């Protein structure tokens, strides 16, 4: 699996005896954009947390950018970043202060220039010196993206990147990620409930349900397999056990 930015093999995690992720295996090709798709409790966030090393698996292996994530996560973490609207940056620090702290943590060189560049790209200039806790949801998302982009990651993990954003801002954010991915060749793995977002951004989709992987393929392949016009219908078919893929027993 030389070309896999992420390779997961028989990964499992239980909480209080209840399996949250159950022996899943999948790979994410380098330079691709892949979605983990599934309903609430499907195991997406648990999987992403294990990929980041925030959570230790009960069993299985995780290789990220060629390294064993359980044994050598600190070799990988400087090359990876993460963004989620549910994990906020310290409210009392200004946007500039937060980016400065994280820039130092990630060892970003020429940090002031990098922050200035991101502030321009992500349109943060007007509120760069405002406390992060006083920003709107859209502004907070842009700041979280700036933090995730500080180290120009080779692998970007996004947990519902456009949740709570208005359609215009969400579209702008998706465009930003697409442009970054094309410009840098980075790999993106995102967890999302937004089917339109997944269809627009992703090359591959991994469908999760109750901790397991129930299907995988490109959005077009999944649509064809389930005989549906869009991913939302495929998602509902899987979530409600409405039909099996064409050709399946």
């Amino acid at each position, binding site marked *: 699996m030389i070309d896999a930015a992420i390779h997961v093999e028989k990964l499992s995690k239980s*909480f209080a005896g209840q399996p949250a992720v159950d022996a899943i295996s999948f790979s994410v090709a380098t330079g691709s954009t892949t979605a983990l798709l599934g309903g609430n409790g499907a195991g997406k*966030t*648990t999987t992403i*947390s294990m990929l*980041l*090393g*925030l*959570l*230790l698996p009960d069993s299985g292996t995780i290789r990220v950018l060629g390294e064993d994530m359980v044994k050598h996560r*600190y070799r990988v*973490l*400087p090359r*990876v970043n*993460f963004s989620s609207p549910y*994990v*906020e*940056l*310290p*409210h*009392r*620090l*200004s946007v500039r*202060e937060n980016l*400065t*702290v*994280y820039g*130092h*943590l*990630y*060892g970003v060189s020429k940090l002031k220039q990098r922050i200035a560049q991101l502030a321009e790209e992500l349109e943060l200039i007007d509120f760069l010196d405002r*406390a992060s806790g006083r920003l709107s949801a859209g502004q907070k998302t842009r700041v979280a993206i700036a*933090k995730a982009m500080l180290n120009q990651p080779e692998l970007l993990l996004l947990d519902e990147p456009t949740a709570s954003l208005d359609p215009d801002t969400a579209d702008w954010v998706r465009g930003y990620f697409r442009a970054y991915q094309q410009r840098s060749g980075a790999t993106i793995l995102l967890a999302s409930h937004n089917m339109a977002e997944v269809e627009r951004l992703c090359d591959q989709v991994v469908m999760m349900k109750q901790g397991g992987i129930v299907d995988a393929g490109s959005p077009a392949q999944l649509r064809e397999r389930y005989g549906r016009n869009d991913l939302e219908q495929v998602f509902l078919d899987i979530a409600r056990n409405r039909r099996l893929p064409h050709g399946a027993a």
Partner: protein
Amino acid sequence: MSGSALRRVGAIMLRHLYILRGSWPRVLEMAYWPAINMTLWGFTSQFFVTHSSWVAQTGGILIGAVVLWDVMFRGNLGVALSFMEEMWSRNLGHLSVSPLRPHELMAGMLGMSLVRTTIGVLPAALLAIPMYHYSLFSMGLPLLTFWLNLMISGWAIGLGVSALVLRFGLGAESMAWVLIFALAPLAGIYYPISTLPSWLQPLAWSLPPAYVFEGMRAVMQGKGLDGHLLAGAVGLNIVYVSAAALIFLRVHHIARKRGLLLNVGE
């Protein structure tokens, strides 16, 4: 520690220094209680000087004790509050997926404790000079050894409290304020350890501050720095702070197993 590790430790300190810079009430609060304590004990000391031959022999002994006790208390708070600040602001998740290692986070917390303790206690020590004509600094070099030893004792408690908070959540945060006071009666802050009942004395001698406060009284009584007391304090501090650091790292590992780093916050 490598250059990049030092930079990450510096980043953690910078994060907390930004908070202090942006909030003068916080800085004032840090210096407020030690100054009030010192003032209270300063007047009490002045009263005792005229009514107690023991205190009269060593003017300033109570002031020295209360200021140095605050070093230990603030040393503990400096560590625990830095950690709890990360939990209150739900920042632990971001930190835990950054290249910051747990021992670097710990080092940053200890560094901030040094800063917070100095901001908190130094004004009280300076204020005692014009108010009571007593300078803690007249102890000379031994003061530095007392200061460092008490701060390290505070660090051991602060790391223990941080581990408790990480393991059991913010419900355990009051431990940062109350746990250390359980040790106060045994530390011999204001009286010699020989004052304690004989069955309690071995317990007192198992704690580093008992050695420090006995040593402080010896210095103030003109007996000089007692090497045995100093060695006792240093030795025990090495044991306790190492144990506390190992417990913190172990609990951090358990937190990664149990998913405790995922949903921390108020």
